[in-house]
């Protein structure tokens, strides 16, 4: 057995054991799951720490600073301020980087959501209504879609009680929402089963050589 095949075999066995440990959770909480869970949390936390350093902090901060690009001093300062939480006396400084992150995050969200999830959605509701060159049933579908979008929006009215006309339209909105939840759920079932088949294929084929 060469070192490489030993590596592979050993690795497969670790993978198989941990896979079984996690699956044991389905029965109930037990020492095997607890072992895998703690290992999982520890290893993944370590993984992301290392990943963060090599893929974010080094290329996006250390390398540019080493190349004397001084505009990177600001993120460095903010990063260090973040760490002041470790000393309670000046811990309040950590609010600055948090404020920076929240501020720029919200600013970006205003723009992206207004554009792609609001204006673009209005547009994609309206554009397919152009009657030229479309069979009637496509147009009918697009009109149903329009009714669904409008009534769904009415459901989200907060300052109007759901009574009378508003209530009736909101009711139609709920129908669309419920159908959409059911459909998305049913649609995902198959993909989730594929994941399980993938894991079992790993266990039965690659590890046990069954099939």
């Amino acid at each position, binding site marked *: 057995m060469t070192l490489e095949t030993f590596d592979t075999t050993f690795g497969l066995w*670790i*993978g198989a054991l941990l896979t079984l440990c996690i699956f044991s959770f389905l029965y109930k909480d037990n020492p095997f799951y607890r072992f895998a869970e703690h*290992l*999982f949390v520890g290893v993944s936390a370590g993984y992301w720490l290392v*990943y963060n350093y090599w893929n974010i902090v080094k290329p996006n901060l250390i390398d540019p600073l080493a190349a004397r690009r001084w505009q990177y001093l600001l993120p460095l300062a903010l990063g260090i301020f973040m760490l002041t939480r470790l000393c309670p006396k000046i811990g309040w400084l950590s609010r600055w980087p948090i404020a920076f992150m929240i501020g720029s995050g919200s600013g970006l969200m205003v723009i992206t959501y*207004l554009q792609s999830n609001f204006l673009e959605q209005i547009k994609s509701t309206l554009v397919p209504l152009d009657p030229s060159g479309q069979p009637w049933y496509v147009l009918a579908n697009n009109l149903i879609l329009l009714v669904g979008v409008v009534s769904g929006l009415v459901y989200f009215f907060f300052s109007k009680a759901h009574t009378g006309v508003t209530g009736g339209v909101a009711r139609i909105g709920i129908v669309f929402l419920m159908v959409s939840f*059911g459909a998305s759920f049913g649609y995902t079932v198959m993909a989730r089963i594929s994941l399980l088949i993938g894991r079992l294929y790993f266990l039965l084929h690659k590890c046990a050589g069954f099939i």
Partner: protein
Amino acid sequence: MRREIPLIITFICGATMVVQFFIPHDPFDGMKAYFQNSYMVIAGFAMILGICNLTMLHLKKVRDKRPKWGYSIVLMAGLVGIAVPGFFFGGIEEKTLFDFIFQNALVPMQSTMFALLAFFVASASYRAFRARTVDAALLLVAGFLVMLGRVPLGDSLTWFMPEGFRMSDLANWIMAVPNTAGQRAIMMGAALGIVATSLRVILGIERSYLGGG
């Protein structure tokens, strides 16, 4: 001042991000990338805090010999076991110890945890897909039809229908028309909620993240 300065920072950063969208001119054109880069770096530094928190909690468990403290040792061993080779021995390239642990421990656990969903999807649908109310019935019927339409069985059950009106076509119709409508209404509503919340954050009206409402 401890509260005012963060509010000013939030306002300046937020306003800059909004303004840069409309101005192609220097220096606004590079602003978005710079800010995003900066907060990635901040999050990178912050990870040290998270790791400290996790370590302290579990070290305390071990020190106080609290029930099941042995698992805390497993956790610490996992953390140190991948971080030390990742930082000092060979980095994160292929065929390093770091990569070995990633491929053979982390990836199988991630995919298995993900695969648990196959079971949970089944138990959730058994419980929730019941025609208790009109709403639940709608959920049930839509989900049921789409599920059947996704497998060959669905079409075989509707063999008597003309082509184009079988179960899979019905499922596709549900996905394309009522489902899209519902999703779109949620998206548009949520977008407004997000925009309004962001505006309140930028203007300092929503400040609970600084502590206090």
